[in-house]
């Protein structure tokens, strides 16, 4: 019973009671038009409609701020509906650019309607679920509401920035050829060692200078084999790492960086795994190729800042996720107690690379000179510098990233390309 029906019943009761108390039939007769109105509305009161809907999106996976057209088709398989209000539940975070998300119309039996609108949104995993359909008879006294399922998913993935090959040197590589020096002699580009000639060695590999010093033996140059490696990327999504905020803009930079780094390693043929560590643990198990690239971008699309008491410290990091002696890349603004855990990880034999977006500079903005804030900023920066220095001393590669600079520039400054790659790119050696 809605408020209009209650109001009408109140009036009818009012007339009846007044008429009965005053023993005046004329007053009771005034209730008759209202009773007729209510009776006809009751006669036409709608039954729950039999509606079927489905939704189509031309693209299921897009980059941020790409307009996507959502089409909904709704068919009435039941009886006539004089007044229907169809409202779509647009997931939070999507902006409607054009079209209509709701429509009010009569829906005769067997008729099909289409609802179209265009949305765009930032990075995220958006799930369209149901349409809310409100139906009522013409007087609006009797109405109902049902949810009609029309599910779909729209994934807005981060856009990887172009990043050239990142030189890494993990202790252990895999069997397939790739760009990473494997610490084993064989076919490669970089000189590795000289050993005695063995039958089958090509003549062009003979080191004639060393051979000339010996009377009987020949010596062959060996080059360092280049292989692919296992790379595990950890994206820190703990709220505490971003100043306790759950929608810090710096996290978007971190996500984009994770996508770019994963893209660069996958392009080189490496096996790459992704682990987002925050409110929970979201993973893409290590793999290679384009499908793995999609998996990683899906994990990054879902990534959001969160807080979990069980995951406050990196000490609960599931290191078994990464193969032993593999390359681990951590993308995190870093918390004070993280350094010890990273040093332990390094001691366990992992090659660790830390990309640390600078939260302090990002949040500080423009600080007035000679102000107390400037002093606080200097102390905070010194603390950060000290923590990063401590990591470097433990053999961890650290990239201190001021996000105003492009990631490519920061990576190139901290990890220069190997000479033959620089030559290949026409850069000074």
């Amino acid at each position, binding site marked *: 019973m809605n408020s209009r029906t209650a109001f009408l019943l109140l009036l009818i009761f009012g007339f009846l009671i007044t008429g009965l108390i005053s023993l005046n039939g004329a007053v009771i007769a005034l209730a008759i038009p209202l009773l007729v109105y209510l009776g006809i509305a009751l006669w036409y009161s709608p039954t729950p409609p039999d509606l*079927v809907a489905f939704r189509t999106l031309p693209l299921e996976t897009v980059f941020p701020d790409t307009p996507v057209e959502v089409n909904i088709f709704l068919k009435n398989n039941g009886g006539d509906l004089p007044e229907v209000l169809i409202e779509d539940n647009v997931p939070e975070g999507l902006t409607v650019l054009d079209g209509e998300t709701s429509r009010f119309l009569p829906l005769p039996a067997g008729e099909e309607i289409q609802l179209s609108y265009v949305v765009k949104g930032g990075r995220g995993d958006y799930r369209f679920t149901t349409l809310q359909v409100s139906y009522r008879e013409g007087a609006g006294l009797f109405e109902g509401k049902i949810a009609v399922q029309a599910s779909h998913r729209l994934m807005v993935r981060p856009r990887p920035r172009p990043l050239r090959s990142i030189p890494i040197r993990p202790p252990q590589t895999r069997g397939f050829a790739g760009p990473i020096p494997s610490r084993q002699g064989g076919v490669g580009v970089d000189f590795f060692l000289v050993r005695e000639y063995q039958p089958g060695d090509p003549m062009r590999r003979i080191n004639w200078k060393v051979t000339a010093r010996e009377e009987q033996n020949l010596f062959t140059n060996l080059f360092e084999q280049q292989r692919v490696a296992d790379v595990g990327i950890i994206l820190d999504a703990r709220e505490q790492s971003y100043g306790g905020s759950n929608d810090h803009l710096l996290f978007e930079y971190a996500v984009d960086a994770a996508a770019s780094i994963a893209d660069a390693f996958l392009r080189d043929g490496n096996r790459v795994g992704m682990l987002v560590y925050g409110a929970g643990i979201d993973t893409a198990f290590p793999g290679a190729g384009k499908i793995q690239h999609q998996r990683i971008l899906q994990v990054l699309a879902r990534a959001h800042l969160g807080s979990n008491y069980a995951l406050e410290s990196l000490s609960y990091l599931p290191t078994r996720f990464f193969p032993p002696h593999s390359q681990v890349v951590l993308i995190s603004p870093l918390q004070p107690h993280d350094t010890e855990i990273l040093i332990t990880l390094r001691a366990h034999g992992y090659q660790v690379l830390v990309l640390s977006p600078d939260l302090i500079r990002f949040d500080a903005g423009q600080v007035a000179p000679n102000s107390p804030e400037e002093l606080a900023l200097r102390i905070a920066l010194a603390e950060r510098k000290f923590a990063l220095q401590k990591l470097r001393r433990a053999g961890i590669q650290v990239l201190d990233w001021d996000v105003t600079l492009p990631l490519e520039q920061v990576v190139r400054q901290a990890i220069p390309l190997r000479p033959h790659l620089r030559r290949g790119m026409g850069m000074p050696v």
Partner: protein
Amino acid sequence: MKAHHMLTATIILTTLFPVWGFVTQGMYTAAGINLALGFLWLVLKWKTIYWATPVLFLIVCMENALLPFFQISPFLALLSVVCGLASWDLHAFARRMSALKDPDLIARFERHHLMRLGLTLFGGLVLGAAGLTIHFRLGFFVAFLLGIAALLAFWYLIVQIAPAPQRPPRTTSFPRENQEEE
């Protein structure tokens, strides 16, 4: 929009019928108050204050229930109640239509709604007039039985109005064609 003009007309008529009754009985102050009330109703409607119409319809109904006690014709009260009911209905209808932009769809809704409302009000008016005109005596026992039947009918009405349990949403399969990676 036809419904808006009809709403204005019904508000005026709702007010004028009791005014006529008061004037015929020489109760000019009450007629003046009634006119002021009608004017207020029109102003509030013009200002699109949505709570005004139900409140003023309630006041009009209370006033019309009192008219027979002042020896004013109950037919005028009946006409005023019918017009008030039309105002209350058209007001809600106009409010629902305000969300629409398509003139063809509005015209379609209006045609259907006005036709049904007209028939309903005519039926109510005829039955109400019959109720005022036809008088007959009933024995106590018959009147008692009719009273019990009326109570049962009213109880049945309220049971019918009570909300029915909602059905769970229907599931549909996801269309997978036309979905490709960017």
